[in-house]
């Protein structure tokens, strides 16, 4: 349940961030800051949001600049898991070339970053 909630929470947040950037014709970084500014400071939701930017912001910006959707971004950030032998869960339409290929390409983008591996457990707790 916890892993599933983390995955769906991630896909929703990434989708909203992406759409905010689209609506305001702004960068992903600006959209993230904007979203956090909308959240109430009591009970410190804006603080948690800022923490998420701190932990994942740079990777998220890299991935979303490639116009990748929430499914692919959250798999690349290890917040959605593939269980071997089970279908890959996704909200959006499968991209051309298939999901596995898209995941591999996205993983390459964040490969040089070690924040993903360090922070996946922390982020899972936050969600």
């Amino acid at each position: 349940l916890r892993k599933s909630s983390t995955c769906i929470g991630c896909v929703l947040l990434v989708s909203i961030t992406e759409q905010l950037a689209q609506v305001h014709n702004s960068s992903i970084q600006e959209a993230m800051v904007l979203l956090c500014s909308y959240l109430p400071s009591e009970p410190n939701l804006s603080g948690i949001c800022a923490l998420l930017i701190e932990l994942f912001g740079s990777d998220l910006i890299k991935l979303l600049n490639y116009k990748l959707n929430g499914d692919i971004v959250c798999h690349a950030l290890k917040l959605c898991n593939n269980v071997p032998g089970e279908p890959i869960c996704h909200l959006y339409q499968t991209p051309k070339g298939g999901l596995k290929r898209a995941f591999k390409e996205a993983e390459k983008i964040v490969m040089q970053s070690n924040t993903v591996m360090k922070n996946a457990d922390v982020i899972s707790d936050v969600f």
Partner: protein
Amino acid sequence: LKLCSLPILRSICETMESSVPLEDFDHDNFSFFPTLRGYHWRGRDCNDMDKSVYPGKRPKDWDALEDSNCNGIWGFDPEDGIPYEKKFCDGTDAKGIIIIGDSAAAHFHIPMQWLSAINMSKETFADLPLALSNELDWPQFSLYTGFQNATIGGWTKSLYLQLRKWNRCNHRDYQNIARNGGSSHNVYQYVESLARNQELDKPVVVFYAMVGNDVCNSNQDTLKYMTTPQEMKSNVLTTLEYLDSRLPNGSHVVLVQLADGRFLWDSIHDRYHPIGQLNKNVKYKHVYNFLSCLKINPCEGWMTENETLRNLTTERADQLSSVLSEIASSYKFKHFKVFYFDNLYQKVTVEWSKLGREPWELIEPVDGFHPSQIASAVGAEIIWKEALLKWPELFGKENAHNKEITAKFADQGGH
């Protein structure tokens, strides 16, 4: 679970677990604090330092000196010395309303604006802390116990408000004992939070409305995990026996039929979900396929592309409803009579379509699964009208003194 082990959150988690108010100084299960199972869920306590003062109580000495039942009627008429509570409420069939139910009864709702980038602003999330401390439920606007004007679209028309209008002596006498995920199986975990003293309090009308969770679960072999008719009978009878030990004489219990959830999929599967509205790329069927894949679909039986499975789920729901109907017609209890209310949401759909409106407007837009604010308001009106015709004793007589009460006590202290 991890979060609940933090000392600061422990008491909040315990509140959610037990379904009693967190802020309740006199431990009478009524509170002056709105959320965390406070007065959004049960009538506001007018004296949280005195355990003998709470909504629903039979007035002490006709409330000549203080408002012991928090209905805002107290004192005495200086002209004849008769207490107002005696003058206006004696012999008027005053009673309260209690709902024992699930997330539909607690009015689960996630605001659509939270997922929509268009028009998102600081105001969008202003209600977030309140919603979280009410478990994402909005009982203050709900079908059974709503009392505030809805701020989430639609309007509020609840059975409590109707019952209060019918007899102003019923002011604040409501309890919402409903919980997300509530079913005939787990109701024992929270029905004990019901606050009614058999000797000291007024009778009540209790609605038992578990409209889906006995057939809804997240398991992929979902049919195997649904409540069987035998289990249903045993579970409901156990709850009714418990109520017989708690409810004052002259009470009533209304068992509400399970919903036919096929209506949900039929109405929304091909419509865009709020997260997909901007780019027209995510429909409800995609959301539910995603949830099923993650094994967190709240209702594998109804929220699925598999029509056969949807029909089988309805078949089981009908069997469970037959059990409720049979109990209502053939079992007798010492302190209350039992009635059975059928086809609530089918009636709501018919009423709504008569107005030329669309069925999807009756469904919560974010989850695609719960009745919307509109469905709740229309449902309250349907139950009220039908009950008055079929069971005139259920809500009692209209109070002839309502106008006098309003003239003397105005909003009776509000809610």
